[in-house]
Each structure stands twice: as C-alpha cells, then as structure tokens.
C-alpha cells in the first residue's frame, strides 16, 4: 500500500486545478492521490462493486483533467468532483441489467422505528459496529445510502447535498431522517439477533 497522501484543503485544490488546466501532470497526480479514496468510496457506496467503482474513479479523474479550466470555483472542489463522480456512477448504474437493480431494500430496513432513540452503537463492539453499519447501509435505497455518504463521509453541506442530488433541501432532510431511522432499526435488529444467537448457544 502506497503512503497516505497529505490532505489538500479547498484553496490548495483550486490552485492545483489551475495548474491542471495548463496541462500540468504533476499537479494532476497530486490531486488524484489526494482525492482518489473519496471518489472510490463514493462510487463503491453507489454501485457496491469495486471494479465498477474503479471505473468511475478513472472516468471521473479523466474528466477533471479535461474540464479543469471550466471549473468556476463557485463550490468546493470536492463537491464539484463528487458531482462528476455521481454522473459517472449513475451512467454505470443505468447501464446495469434490470435484474441487478432494486435489491436496495429488504424487510429488515423497511420497518420503521417509533422514535429516534440513541441506542444501537453502545451495545456493539467496534468491529461489529463497522460491519453492522456496512451491512445496514447496503440495505438502504441508493438515495438514502448516498445521502448518508455525502453527509458523514464526504462532509458535504445541506446545500451541497441538495445540489448534488438535484432535490430541494427539505427532501435531503427527509431522506436523511429516514436513512438514520432505518440504520437504527437495522442495528437494533442485528443486536437482537446477536442476543438470540448467544442465548441459543448458552
């Protein structure tokens, strides 16, 4: 595994983008290494397949190279980048066969909880938390999964998420509310299942 690249703040990223617009490959490589994990993570959440996620990463970065001069600087560089990745991922998603789609929801995540109770993590050990969240995220619809990813991993603002998903801010709030509800419910069911399993084995 290559050394972890230094994070790049928005001002620096925009400076590098200016150099990329002048065909500077070294600047491009710096940006690539600094943001590849974020783009890959986003694409993987959207598509669930590493090969396709890598494809989206390559296409997205290629687009950055070609369109660096067109970036107006109105948004954060990372928001612009994720916007490109989103379009690429949607193209891949739409290109899938129909029977590959709509496995997003199942009965575990569909059941609503009555209220936003803050349980769900304390009972789980760290590894189980990570795996639990991963498993529960996979059960969400694409919009909900993307919403959680954009907020909690990409660090996007409400306005940015609304812009990226192409919906009003209130819709983002609603999606986020339901996504959290379903994650909580899913985690609760996991804990109950764990309890039942350990009760049966004792």
């Amino acid at each position, binding site marked *: 595994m290559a050394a972890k690249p230094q994070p790049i703040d928005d001002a620096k990223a925009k400076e590098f983008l200016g150099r990329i617009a002048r065909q500077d490959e070294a600047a491009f490589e710096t940006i690539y290494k600094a943001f590849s994990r974020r783009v*890959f993570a986003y694409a993987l959440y959207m598509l669930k397949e*590493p090969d396709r996620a890598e494809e989206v*990463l390559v296409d997205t970065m290629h687009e950055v190279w070609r369109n660096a001069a067109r970036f107006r600087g109105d948004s954060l560089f990372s928001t612009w980048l994720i916007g490109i990745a989103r379009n690429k991922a949607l193209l891949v998603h739409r290109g899938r066969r129909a029977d590959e789609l709509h496995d997003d929801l199942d009965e575990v995540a569909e059941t609503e909880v009555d209220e936003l109770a803050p349980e769900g993590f304390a009972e789980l050990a760290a590894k189980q938390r990570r*795996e639990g969240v991963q498993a529960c995220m996979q059960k969400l619809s694409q919009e909900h999964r993307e919403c959680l990813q954009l*907020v*909690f*991993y990409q660090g996007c603002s409400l306005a940015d998420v609304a812009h990226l998903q192409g919906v009003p801010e209130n819709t983002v709030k609603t999606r*986020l509310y339901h996504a959290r509800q379903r994650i909580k419910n899913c985690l609760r069911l996991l804990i109950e299942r764990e309890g039942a399993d350990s009760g049966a084995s004792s």
Partner: protein
Amino acid sequence: MSIRLSELLPWYVNGTLKDEEREWVDRCLAADAGARAELEWHRELQSSIAQSVSEVAPDLGLARTLRHIRADRPTLGDRIRSWLGGAGLGPVVALARPIAVIAAVSLIGVQSVSIYVLTRHADDAQQIRALRALPADEGPLLRVNFAPDAREADIRLLLSAVEGSLAGGPGQLGDYYVRVPAGTENAAASRLKHERIVAAVEVVAGLPDAY
C-alpha cells in the same frame, strides 16, 4: 429532542453548520442529556462509515487515467497542422493535398512516357533527360525528430532561429524535413541537437522517395 435539533445534528457533526446554528445546537447539547446521547450516536455513525470505507492505494487507477490523458493529446503533426492553419497557411495546407495528387499523377505520366521513350528510342539520351522529372526539394535538408512533449510554439521559434522552414513530414517515424539556407545545414544541425525539444537531427541529401 426537537425536530430542529434532529435535523441539524448531522451537519453539526460534519462541521458545515453556520455559526448561529452551531451555537444554538451547543446550547441544546449543554441543556439536554438526550441530545448529547443523540450527538454521540451520530459521531459513532460517522466514524463507522469512515472505517467501513475500503483502504485503497491512492494511485489506484492512476496509470490507466494517465494513459487516457496522453491518448487524448494531439499529436505533433496535429499541432503543426493546427499551427499552419492558425498562421494563415490553412489554404496552403488545403491546397497541398490536391497538388500532391496532381504531382503523383504527373509523375506516373512522366514515368510512363519515359518507359515508352526508353523502349522506342533507347539510344536517344537527350530526349530522356528532357523528360526527367525534377525532384520537388533538392537537398541537403535536416531530418529532425522532436520530443513528444514539444509544443508547436517552441518548434516555431526554433525553426525561425535557424531560418528553417518545413519541407516535409511528419513521416511514420515522426521525421520532419527542414530546409535551411544553403551552406548553413551543419551549423543549424549543431544548434538544433542541443535543444531540449529536439530528440535527433541529421543532415540528409533530400526528401526520401516517399515524398
């Protein structure tokens, strides 16, 4: 816990709240243990999502992307053609193709007549000499290969520094043939070979047969 607090907590956790909203959330958290527990849940969710992201090499797919980028780049020939077009020489470039066709047809015609004359009047050397086609570009010329990253502006400057003009190229191997004032070929070649954008330079007798 209020709906407003519930709506704001995700943005509080990811650090994108405006100052006044952040202060409002801080006040709620200070006053409400349930709100603090909810905040803790959001932080755990954030951390779990971050940990669930696969570790990938930062240069994953980089080599492939660079290949795409380099494949997009215009070739040196494209750049020179574009430069010739931009320098008002577009009509010359446009004319070059039909002229080349006419020249090729003429050459075939001349050669056919020559063969005819040779077979009919093998001893009439004077007639043959009269029909011999003169090469379009008598040498010597410089055969130059430019570096792949050479820009047409740099090439233009370089050619003008040796008072050179393009006589032919690029060939399949990227050869360009440059005409310089008679008698300055060796000096021009010595000068060009030290330039960063010149990969190779050689004085040659003239354009190869393919031209």
